[in-house]
């Protein structure tokens, strides 16, 4: 078992940057964001979580899929090899949660190639990132239990325990042996303490919620009341690390894919202007059922990793966590 200190970590990232593009957390005005990095000195190592989730590097907010040229059509792919450093466990699980969607039946290489070509070095959390985080209840964090190539778990201020999760991860350790040190007993104890430490302030029971959602679908009055202050802005979808719904749009030269939101009125707009989910409460209900019930029933995972962003950034002050708990504690009608 290995550990690495901050200086050596930067050296490691510098050497990985030789053959790969490097994505890492950097400062952008007041915020921390993920971006392509040229100089590892720009990387921010002490941050809680980014406002925008990591998904945009796998399913970008806007991505060209096809190119039209004189009646011919070409698909657009990037075969860029990348190393993604600093992804937090909730965003990491967000990717694992949407993977089965892009794999089922006809695969979607526009997403899956990016997944395949990206080595992920995750960064576990030791401090609370957000008052509304419930990653412990969502079984996503504060330390990831899979999906990464390497995971760094902080051991105090200057060092990280290195957990290996794949062959690609093992190769990195192998090829850069001089930068890693053996973790001793006290390091392992610290790492285990971090794994066992509870840091969330919010708690939910997603399995109970799913159970209680069963009888709630047709309780129109409840959904109307719950969605009363929603502004239909879609922030809760755009900022969610596991929402993947997307739209296809043409301009004269290209067909591109972009994020969509089930909260938008046009999301189900059919021919002749028929809108099955015309009323806001039906769209609000869709978001919750798709995330917490149907995706889980279909793929075995909840489409929520407990990052708390949908509560923290909702301009309509929708208390999603309270809704989950209220329904979970109800008689299920």
């Amino acid at each position, binding site marked *: 078992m290995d550990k690495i200190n901050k200086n050596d970590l930067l050296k490691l990232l510098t050497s990985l940057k030789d053959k790969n593009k490097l994505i890492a957390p950097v400062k952008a005005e007041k915020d921390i964001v993920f971006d392509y990095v040229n100089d590892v000195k720009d990387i921010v190592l002490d941050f809680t979580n980014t406002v925008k989730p990591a998904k945009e590097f796998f399913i970008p907010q806007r991505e060209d*899929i*096809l190119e*039209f040229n004189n*009646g*011919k*059509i*070409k*698909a657009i*792919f990037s*075969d860029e090899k990348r190393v993604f450093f600093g992804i937090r466990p909730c965003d990491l699980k967000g990717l694992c949660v949407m993977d089965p*969607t*892009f794999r*089922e*039946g*006809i*695969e*979607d*290489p*526009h997403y899956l*190639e990016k997944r395949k070509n990206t080595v992920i070095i995750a960064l576990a959390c030791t401090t609370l990132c957000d008052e509304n985080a419930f990653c412990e209840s969502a079984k996503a964090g504060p330390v990831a239990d899979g999906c990464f190539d390497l995971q760094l778990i902080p051991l105090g201020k200057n060092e990280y325990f290195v957990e290996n999760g794949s062959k690609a991860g093992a190769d990195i350790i192998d090829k850069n042996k001089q930068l890693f040190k053996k973790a001793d007993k006290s390091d392992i104890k610290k790492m285990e303490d971090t794994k066992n430490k509870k840091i969330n302030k919010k708690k939910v029971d997603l399995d109970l919620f799913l159970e209680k959602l069963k009888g709630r*679908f*047709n309780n129109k009055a409840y959904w109307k009341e719950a969605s009363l202050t929603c502004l239909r802005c879609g922030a809760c979808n755009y900022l969610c690390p596991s929402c*993947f*719904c*997307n*739209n*296809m*749009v*043409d*301009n*004269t*030269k290209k*067909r591109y894919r972009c994020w*969509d939101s*089930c909260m938008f009125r046009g*999301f*189900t*707009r*059919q*021919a*002749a202007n*028929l809108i*099955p*989910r015309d009323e806001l409460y*039906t769209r609000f209900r*869709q978001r919750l*059922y*798709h995330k917490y*019930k*149907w*995706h889980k*029933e*279909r793929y075995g995972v909840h489409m929520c990793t407990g990052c708390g962003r949908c509560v923290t950034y909702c301009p309509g002050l929708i208390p999603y966590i309270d809704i989950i708990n209220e329904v979970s504690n109800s008689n299920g009608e």
Partner: protein
Amino acid sequence: MENKSPYLPKIVKIKKVKQETEDIKTFTLDYKPIFKPGQFFEIGINGIGEAPFTAASASKKHFQASIKRTGKLTEAIHQLKAGDKLTIRGPYGNSFPIEKIKGKNMLFIGGGIGLPPLHSLIRTVLENRGRYGKITVFYGARDEAQIVSREELKNIWPKMKNFRVVVCVDFKKNKGEWPHNVGLVTGIMEKELKHPFTRNKNTIVFVCGPPIMIKAVIQKLLEHCFKEENIILTLERLMKCGFGKCGHCNVGEKYICLDGPVFSYKEIKEFEEEF
């Protein structure tokens, strides 16, 4: 790599365009895909977009779809003539339960543009006529000018053995040449479901048409004791990808594009409000 994208459509030539009604045209393409009746394809024009359309032809024959002009893309498709090009990708979705209906009687209920999607099934059944029971078609259109598949409804099907056709129009504008009923499809159902040729609770019913019609038809069928699992619907939903990636067609734990568009009423009745 470039050829690997499932979003990459084929570019195909239009062989023939047939004006069915004022706003419906049937396009025959120079393309013979293999598919099962009930499956759909994404048809498009570069720079404008794509939309799902059900195949009206039979598998391995020149592909046909009847397309109603209702908006941006269908407007543009309607401008095209024989020799022009379209893009197409598919087939997608499940199909009609061909195996389940062997030896059974069938009732097809179509409204407006909802008949062509049933065509590919009717055509498949007719290719192996001996394997299936009696066929009844109820078809309703707004007025006489809106009737699709006129040739089949008037001259071909009614002359076939064990085949009964009832056509109705909501409004009768003039004294048309059609021997037909006036009123909604549900109106004729009341009477026609009792007809000895059609009356049989084990008949498999296929319904395709606008949502309001589908709802009313289901109601009537249930009143006449048809079984929920024997009422087969093809559902419409906004679909962007056609193969389970864009999330638009999600209803319940189903994706209409992957698990549908063909469902029995029993499978979807929990989410009736969603349609």
